[in-house]
């Protein structure tokens, strides 16, 4: 025995611990599904998976509960448990879950395994059962990876976060592999062989990891939702004014180190008239259309925000007045060329643009904003649908 493992673990106690872990997890997931009503179907299927896996270990005759056909029940329950995990991952991502397929697979394998004559410890039986569970786990890994990628994680982080399920899949293959490599020496899981002890420990750790992992996915979903709600304008999904102010302040402090930036103010023309003529819903649709049209003109580092009403602002880091004028002119032309209709009535969408670049003489970002505002005022005065710039007067 190594100094870290001073006691030989007892397989029956490990099975009892597994039952306790699955039991508590079932209760907690049910509580989250019923009490918090957050992703209730995902939580309910995770609760179901825990309950079935727990019951599958509980039915093991090592714990002294014997039912007729308990091996068969035990196998079927663990298979159904992995089926539910397969369903839970898309449900967390609010996508349809393939429950018909999973149900059909569980029933088919259940019927097949009941017809095997050689007993539960034969190789074909193990291959079929554990192979199916492993396939479910591997498929869930793929789903989880896609879900995490869709949430904006990079490939490596998504791989790390999806890996616990893949390890479960490999662990499940270990039992038929053992039967294949060392035929005749296979023992039921309550026999204290080194392989069994290691397998049970691994199952315990993974049971905990998988539950912790699904909780982490749910919490991540909530955190991203909160971030979106606090940073974004709910109508257009552009940044809100506060998030833009923070970005501009950060950019302005970099300006002291020689990185200039430019601001583009854009204001939709005749917006009040549009609202009064076609109604508020048309006004909302026009704002959304404007954001969709101008967004492709922006780089990854640029920030588009709604300041309020029909007024928007773009922050262009590392950009001078000439670059900003190009961007603004492209946005103006695209918007003017974009057809917009409401209830069959065409309405020309145009906007006026005011641009200004930062300078080392600016004490704060407010002065850049003030110049952009002056430029916008000038653009409006010139008859709208134009780009205007206000440059800093040379210091005397």
């Amino acid at each position, binding site marked *: 025995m190594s100094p870290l493992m001073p006691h030989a673990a007892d397989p029956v106690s490990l099975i009892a*611990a597994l039952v306790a872990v699955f039991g508590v997890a079932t*209760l*907690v997931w049910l509580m989250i599904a019923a009490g918090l009503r957050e992703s209730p179907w995902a939580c309910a299927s995770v609760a179901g998976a825990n309950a079935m896996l727990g019951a599958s270990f509980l039915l093991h005759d090592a714990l002294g509960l014997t039912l007729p056909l308990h091996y068969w029940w035990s196998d079927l329950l663990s298979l159904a448990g992995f089926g539910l995990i397969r369903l839970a991952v898309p449900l967390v991502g609010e996508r349809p879950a393939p429950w018909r397929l999973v149900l059909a697979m569980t029933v088919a394998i259940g019927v097949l395994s009941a017809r095997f004559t050689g007993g539960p410890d034969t190789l074909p039986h193990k291959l079929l059962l554990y192979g199916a569970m492993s396939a479910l786990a591997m498929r869930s890994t793929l789903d989880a990876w896609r879900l995490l990628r869709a949430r904006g994680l990079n490939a490596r982080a998504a791989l790390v976060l999806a890996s616990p399920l893949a390890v479960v899949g490999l662990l499940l293959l270990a039992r038929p592999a053992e039967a294949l490599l060392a035929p005749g020496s296979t023992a039921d899981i309550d026999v204290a062989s080194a392989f069994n002890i290691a397998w049970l*420990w691994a199952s315990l750790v993974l049971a905990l990891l998988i539950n912790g992992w699904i909780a*982490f996915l749910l*919490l991540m979903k909530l955190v991203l939702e909160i971030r979106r709600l606090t940073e974004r304008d709910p109508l257009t999904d552009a940044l809100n004014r506060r998030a833009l102010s923070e970005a501009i302040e950060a950019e302005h402090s970099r300006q002291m180190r020689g990185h200039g930036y430019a601001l583009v103010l854009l204001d939709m023309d005749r917006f009040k008239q549009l609202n009064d003529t076609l109604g508020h819903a048309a006004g909302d649709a026009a704002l959304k259309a404007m954001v969709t049209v101008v967004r492709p003109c922006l780089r990854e580092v640029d920030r588009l925000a709604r300041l309020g009403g029909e007024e928007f602002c773009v922050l262009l880091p590392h950009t001078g007045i000439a670059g900003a004028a190009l961007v603004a002119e492209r946005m103006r032309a695209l918007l003017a060329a974009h057809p917009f209709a409401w209830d069959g009535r065409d309405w020309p969408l145009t906007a006026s643009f005011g641009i200004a670049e930062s300078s080392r003489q600016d004490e704060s970002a407010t002065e850049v904003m003030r110049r952009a505002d002056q430029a916008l005022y000038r653009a409006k005065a010139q008859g709208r649908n134009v780009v205007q710039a206000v440059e800093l007067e040379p210091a005397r």
Partner: protein
Amino acid sequence: MPPLDAATLLMVIAVIDAIACVVWLALGQVLRIAPRAARRISAYHGLLALAWWPALPAAMERLVALPLDVLSAALLAAGVRALMRVRYRAWDIAAVAAAGLLATAATAGDPDLSTARAVSNLAGGVLALMAAWDVAAGAGFRAGLTSVVLLPYLVLASGCFWRAGGLLGWMPAGLDLAGLAANAPLALLRLVVDLTIATGLVALVMQRLIARVRHLTRRDALTGVLNRRAFEEHLARLQAQAERGRGHAVLVLDVDHFKRINDELGHAGGDAALQHLARVLGETLRDNDCFGRLGGEEFAVLLPDTDPDGAMRVAERLRQLLQAQPLAWGDKLWPISASFGVATMRAGDAHGRGALARADAAMYAAKARGRNRVLRAVDEADLA
């Protein structure tokens, strides 16, 4: 049921705590969820994992295992307090932990470990009760769920007290508890208690985030009053009651000369004016009056079970309050006023929008008559 092995179960507890330690580190450091509470809870699980791992030689129990027990219980109580945001100071927790550690140290000369174990159990029990107190005060669950979350703390505390009583010889013979290392059923119970504490804490965090999402989706970000969608939900709910014959009133108000305020004070000044209005009016409304921002400088209030005259009185009171409290901006006071329109809800309106439209028209009429006044919707005056 076959006999279980206590040492194996203790190792399982240690493994569970080690994993919980990692999960809380990830929550706090990667997702930035309640970082301070997450650090404490992670440390609690980490210390507990060390304390339970049976690799510690028995001779180290007084020096390492018992102090670790007390410290981890203190970290749990401190973590729960940070998570619940009920209070911020943790002097009481530190005092109990220090007393427990000192009393354990004071038994150093005693070759028998019973007193030291009893002291550590007593301190652990008191700290578990303090954590339970904070959970009860701060959990936003319904009573049933809160008691489920509380249960493991209470079981833990009573187990600690029972064991301490047995060690000190206060229990009748035969009723004292053997230690976890020699008591497999108790070790299994401790495993379940630790698991429920760990998962209950995650559930509490989840509940807090969900509450935050609900708040953000229902509230206007600038003023904190209901946003338009949430207000319209309340309006539709009250309309359903109006169909059954109850009398509710709707009040619409719009800040006077808001464009001028914006032009003179800038956007930040305009925002401050709206926040000022929401604060002044929000303080005086009843709890079940729904106060919402319809957009721009337009607000609305739902007054349940209020007749037209009552609603006029409320509106007049709000108008006077606003007029009496100018906005402090820069080093000057800026007078703020608003025009009010009042209408009552009637059966037959779709989603209550009719009442809102009538109140809106009355508000515009008030603007036309010179602003800073309250008007009742026209046809209501005829009905009255």
